């Protein structure tokens, strides 16, 4: 009976020693995580990165602006106590598309010339030439008829209208 008790005692003691050894030389994952987050915070290019740590292995996820920032994130973690390795799962944010500048739609010459013929039909004294999207008006017109003619021509989406008409 006495022998059994001492055996049990021995077992308990060894368990206590082993567990004490483990906890003293290992740093807790939570502490590693805090240290990693602090290190990343120092660099403005490394914001918004999610950190998880398990068994001393840190996983970084999220988006950074370029490869340099991705490498910098890893470099920033060198020397953190208890950090065994880094799994770098950071992705690079694609650059925003270049802003699209809307171009005014200009009608091609052939359809434009045809439409111009229709538009000036009611103005006998007016001649129109179309080149490179520009409508050039020559001849003469009554002032009262001018706005309507210009309205019709502007609605054809020309590049511009060169009005060289003589106004009567």
């Amino acid at each position: 009976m006495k022998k059994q008790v001492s055996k049990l005692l021995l077992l308990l003691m060894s368990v206590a020693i082993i567990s004490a050894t483990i906890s003293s030389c290992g740093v807790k994952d939570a502490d590693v995580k805090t240290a990693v987050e602090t290190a990343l915070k120092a660099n403005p290019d490394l914001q918004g990165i999610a950190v998880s740590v398990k068994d001393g292995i840190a996983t970084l996820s999220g988006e950074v602006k370029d490869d340099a920032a991705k490498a910098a994130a890893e470099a920033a973690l060198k020397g953190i106590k208890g950090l065994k390795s880094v799994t770098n799962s950071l992705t690079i944010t694609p650059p925003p598309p270049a802003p699209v500048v809307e171009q005014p739609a200009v009608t091609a010459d052939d359809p434009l010339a045809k439409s111009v013929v229709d538009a000036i039909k009611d103005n006998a004294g007016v001649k129109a030439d179309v080149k490179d999207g520009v409508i050039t008006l020559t001849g003469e017109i009554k002032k009262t008829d001018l706005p309507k003619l210009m309205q019709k021509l502007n609605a054809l989406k020309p590049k511009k209208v060169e009005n060289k008409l003589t106004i009567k």
Partner: protein
Amino acid sequence: MALQDKYKPLIDAATAAGASNLKVREQDGVLYVDGDVPSGAVKDQLWNEYDKIDPNYTSGDLVLNVNVSGAIDGGKLKVVTKSSNLNIRKGPGTDQPIVGKAAHDEIVTLVSKSSDQWWLIRSVDGEEGYAYAQYLEPAN
């Protein structure tokens, strides 16, 4: 930006008169102003404003394309010729034969918009054909 300043009173007037889808862009020395206006009166007002800023529209630095909104298929249109009849043609083009006429101020029905320039309409007499859109605007 200089052209936008030159034509600012026009653009302001368009906004004040309730123009919608107003687009103002400048390219290669020409200002492009597109938009929809609520009535033919507003359109005329804007063209008057344009004439005031650039008498007889001779500078060639503005393309003003404002159209009266609200023309829908099946809707009523008013013939806004100066005084004459509006030709109704077999196809979309002045080279097409005339199949009918609509009187000045007559109310016709919009069948469909064949293009920006030519609309398929039906007159009160039941004549159907293409008419020049710049002589038509939504009734009321």
